[in-house]
């Protein structure tokens, strides 16, 4: 049985399965009218899209994905892209934010339009729980912090009679790693004014590299990046503690995952667990859920 763990985030889509660990930007566009342009095309019902990194070759035809509604609408395009690359699956496990349960049935029917596989949609956060708890002893209670592109999801969980349950969950909108990028943008001096006008996604790439080349000159932004991360983590940590209150204080383990976990050291979260390649944690956990559900 081939199981696919599919985590469609606002920043990147992550896939995990037997022999597959793959991520691509959650971006799509209509293909440009240039027959010489070699871009991978995804065909859905006769309509073609360009997906992932190739969208930079079709920037004028780009379709934005600002909310979960568009994410659900275009999810089949991203799944089809993965199926075209890696072949058929028997079970696709994916997730939605816990506050988006009302979108489950439309996501299910949208995904089923491009695959014969069984589709299982579970609340986000469960993936990270299954990924971490299946490999690490995290005690009987934990706070899972998933630092994404736009949002940070925090779930306090506890194990009671061998069953993991949610105690509390919050979503911090606009507290994802883009906030650190914005902080860096604010800190840049006037001589780098050009960067201040860049789009968020361009600036994210610069942030990740910690440097930029302008007119052939390489500019090191490492100091600004480090300071921005430090400020961001402090803001995020205090906000999380304030929102989760007692759930955070008494907890045995703090699990920090998602792409933003790369920037947040364990030192900030006490007994913190950062899974290996944290951006894949959710997708890996979806895969575990799929394998375990298949085993009865």
């Amino acid at each position, binding site marked *: 049985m081939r199981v696919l763990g599919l985590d469609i985030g606002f920043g990147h889509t992550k896939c995990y399965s*037997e022999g597959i660990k793959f991520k691509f930007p959650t971006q799509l566009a209509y293909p440009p009218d240039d027959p*010489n342009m070699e871009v991978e095309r995804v065909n859905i019902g006769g309509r073609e899209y360009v997906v992932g990194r190739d969208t930079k070759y079709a920037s004028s035809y780009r379709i934005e994905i600002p909310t979960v509604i568009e994410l659900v609408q275009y999810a089949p395009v991203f799944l089809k892209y993965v199926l075209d690359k890696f072949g058929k699956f028997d079970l696709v496990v994916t997730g939605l934010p816990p506050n988006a349960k009302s979108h489950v049935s439309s996501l299910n029917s949208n995904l089923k339009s491009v695959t014969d596989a069984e589709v299982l949609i579970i609340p986000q956060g469960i993936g990270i729980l299954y990924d971490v708890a299946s490999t690490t002893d995290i005690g009987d209670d934990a706070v899972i912090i998933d630092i994404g592109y736009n949002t940070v999801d925090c779930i306090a969980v506890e194990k009671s009679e061998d069953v*993991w349950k949610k105690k509390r969950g919050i979503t911090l909108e606009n507290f994802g790693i883009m906030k650190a990028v914005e902080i860096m943008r604010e800190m840049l001096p006037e001589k780098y004014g050009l960067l201040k006008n860049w789009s968020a996604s361009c600036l994210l790439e610069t942030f990740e590299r910690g440097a930029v080349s302008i007119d052939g000159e390489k500019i090191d932004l490492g100091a600004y990046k480090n300071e921005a991360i430090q400020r961001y983590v402090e803001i995020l940590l205090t906000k999380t503690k304030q929102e989760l209150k007692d759930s955070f204080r008494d907890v045995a383990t703090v699990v920090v995952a998602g792409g933003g976990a790369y920037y947040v050291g364990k030192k900030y979260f006490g007994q913190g667990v950062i899974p290996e390649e944290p951006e894949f944690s959710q997708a890996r956990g979806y895969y575990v859920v799929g394998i375990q559900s298949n085993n009865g």
Partner: protein
Amino acid sequence: MSLEYKAITVKLRNKEVYKKYRLLFRLGRVVIESLLEILFEKTEVVELQNAFLSDGESGVKELIRAKMFTGQNIEPTNSKEAFIKQEEVLPKVQELEQKTKPKLKSDMQGFWG
């Protein structure tokens, strides 16, 4: 007579090929154009398109290998299959590990909201 060039963008996916291609500094066009000339002497565009329609990228690769190396005793390989076989080694172990691990239980419905 002025020479007119048509610019094309080709994305190379094979890292090893890409590394060697970079070493061709300023020779990229003549190398690629020569290869295409040889290829088009041996096959028609429609054959390549048909190979893609029936077997995808691996079909095109096989057809090119077969056409280019006819009579040279080089066996075409299905690179896609080779890739999958190579990648499957570790994950099959991972899958087995997952199957033998104690099953986690959770109140999934309770996580919504």
